[in-house]
């Protein structure tokens, strides 16, 4: 971690995972350096979400290695991985609908060892990032709008003071304006706190503009990688993910 050169925070080598006989990841290599935003883009069924879930231990990796901060986390249980302060905002947000916003946020901090002061600063940080949540504190999670639920899911993930934040399709089903707010918040987090972020997106244009580096995934394999701008210029990326998806 302290090594001045580029020692990746998350290092994935030859990762394979499968659902039954269907192989979803066919040997993925991926690096995330500290303080970086990395975007993972690809079509439906390319294995983006599977990759994220495999990092989190479910489904189990069939082969390959995942190292977080130099430590092998390949066979660990999901909750143990989360306790290393890798946080995720899962696909479909998955907030707790019958619990209040405040309780949802507390849940984020409960599992990690976290003092009262940490909780307070964590909460402070979340509400400055998403002032909307402040107004909604006492409301049930299920009554929030889609955008607010996404903010809550990210806020909840932030409560564990993560070293790596993984976001699965944060803009899914959101109005463009709301999606932009979410992306802005991620950028702020990265710039101000140096938070390392892995973002999985279908919205390639947004994601690649936000990210320092990007990976393109096709059929369980990484086919392209490079800086966000590089990828945006690549004709194959443009034709596959951007044409028609470009709204300015």
């Amino acid at each position, binding site marked *: 971690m302290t090594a001045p050169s580029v020692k990746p925070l998350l290092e994935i080598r030859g990762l394979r995972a499968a659902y039954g006989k269907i192989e979803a990841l066919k040997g993925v290599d991926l690096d995330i350096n500290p303080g970086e935003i990395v975007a993972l883009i690809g079509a439906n069924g390319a294995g983006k979400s599977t990759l994220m879930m495999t990092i989190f231990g479910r489904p189990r990796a069939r082969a390959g290695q995942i190292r977080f901060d130099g430590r092998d986390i390949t066979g660990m249980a999901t909750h143990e991985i989360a306790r290393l302060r890798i946080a995720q905002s899962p696909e479909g947000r998955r907030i707790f609908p019958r619990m209040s916003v405040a309780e949802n946020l507390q849940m984020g901090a409960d599992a*990690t060892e976290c003092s009262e002061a940490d909780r307070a600063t964590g909460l402070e940080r979340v*509400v400055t990032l998403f002032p909307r949540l402040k107004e909604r504190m006492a409301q049930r999670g299920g009554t929030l709008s889609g955008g607010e639920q996404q903010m809550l899911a990210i806020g909840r993930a932030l409560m564990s003071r993560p070293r790596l934040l993984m976001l699965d399709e944060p803009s899914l089903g959101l109005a463009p304006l709301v999606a932009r707010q979410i992306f802005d918040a991620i950028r702020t987090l990265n710039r101000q706190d140096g938070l390392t972020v892995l973002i999985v997106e279908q919205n390639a244009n947004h994601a690649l503009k936000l990210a320092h580096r990007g990976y393109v995934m096709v059929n369980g394999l990484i086919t392209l990688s490079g800086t966000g701008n590089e990828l945006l210029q690549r004709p194959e990326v443009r034709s596959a993910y951007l044409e028609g998806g470009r709204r300015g």
Partner: protein
Amino acid sequence: MTASAPERTSTSRATGAAFIFKKALISALVALVLFSLMIGIRTEAGPTGQLIYWTRFGDLASMVAIVFGGSIVVELLRQWWGAAGTTIRVIPPPVQTTLAVAGRLVAPALLIFALLVPVIFYHQRYILDLGILVLTYVMLGWGLNIVVGLAGLLDLGYVAFYSVGAYSYALLSTNFDLSFWVCLPLAGILAAFWGVLLGFPVLRLRGDYLAIVTLAFGEIIRLVIINWQSLTGGPNGISGIPRPTFFGIPLTASDNGLAAKLGIPFSPTHRIVFLFYLILALALLTNWVTIRLRRLPIGRAWEALREDEVACRALGINTTTTKLTAFATGAMFGGFAGAFFATRQGFISPESFTFQESALVLAIVVLGGMGSQLGVALAALAMIGGFELFRGLEQFRMLVFGLAMVLLMIWRPRGLIGHRAPTVFLKQSQAISSDLVKEGHG
């Protein structure tokens, strides 16, 4: 149910009489088909074994008419109040505030009433016994509420832990002469132990599958009790279970009894009153522990587990241990209640621990509104007390009971008290500071 008749504002809904009539007609038709054989024709075996039958078309007609009329009434009431969840209820604000105030007073009023029951009904043994019974079910309901209401694990075999508690006390006290106060925690610990034992294999299961396994577990415990004659006495049960003592002082007419020590004349009612306060205290302990736990991370984790297991795991919650603690905690209170049951009855047999008990306790939890402490208490009162109320109706009791349940599920699908009070409070809605977090931590 809403007791106050809400004012009907000008409804724009065009659900005309024709619709209601059509619906009622369909119901009546279904009733006709169903009842034509069940009620319309009565069969009996004649003296020589031949079949005699006669028709009762008058009864059939009246039955169908009742269904027809009833279905119109139900439909009208439904439009009047609006089914919960589908339409917005029209209750004028003043009524709402009165209801809210009344709602806040229900719990303390109920508690004060419970405390005063032995004073008011001192000479009515029947009411005292009924009170003890109701409180036993309140306690069981609160115990099961931890598993079903909070953690969302459907447990159809809760009676297993109740029986483990009862048999623990019965066996320990008759074989080793241990007092009630020593056995009570032991019964709880043993029940919790069985809860963990059951928990391990079933934790991978969810929903229906879990329900079936717990159902089987309840039956296994009962069958083991029946068949392990040398230990449990089998179907004959265990008799001569010692009565509880007032911390070592027996509640008898003897010279060292409590009455003699206090210098008051002995009365058998003393023991009943003592039992009443004992179960009240146990039930309140269950309630207090549950309320405390809900504000701690473990209780919050239980509720989160009910909401979304995958999200829980992603947040670093160990779902296995979380489920186990819920199972064990619920089982422990079941065990306490079982020990109390044994000491109160003085005799236990496997017949007291059938699936029907599990179903009854589960019905109390579901009717009360999953996770609501007050709701469970009210439901226990209504179910056990109400059941006694209709004793005169004999076999129609079940009918009334079923009808009440159907009606309740139509209007209050989430149970009597369906809303859930948050455990993290805001002092001021404006300032979000560390105060909030401290509150949240209990």
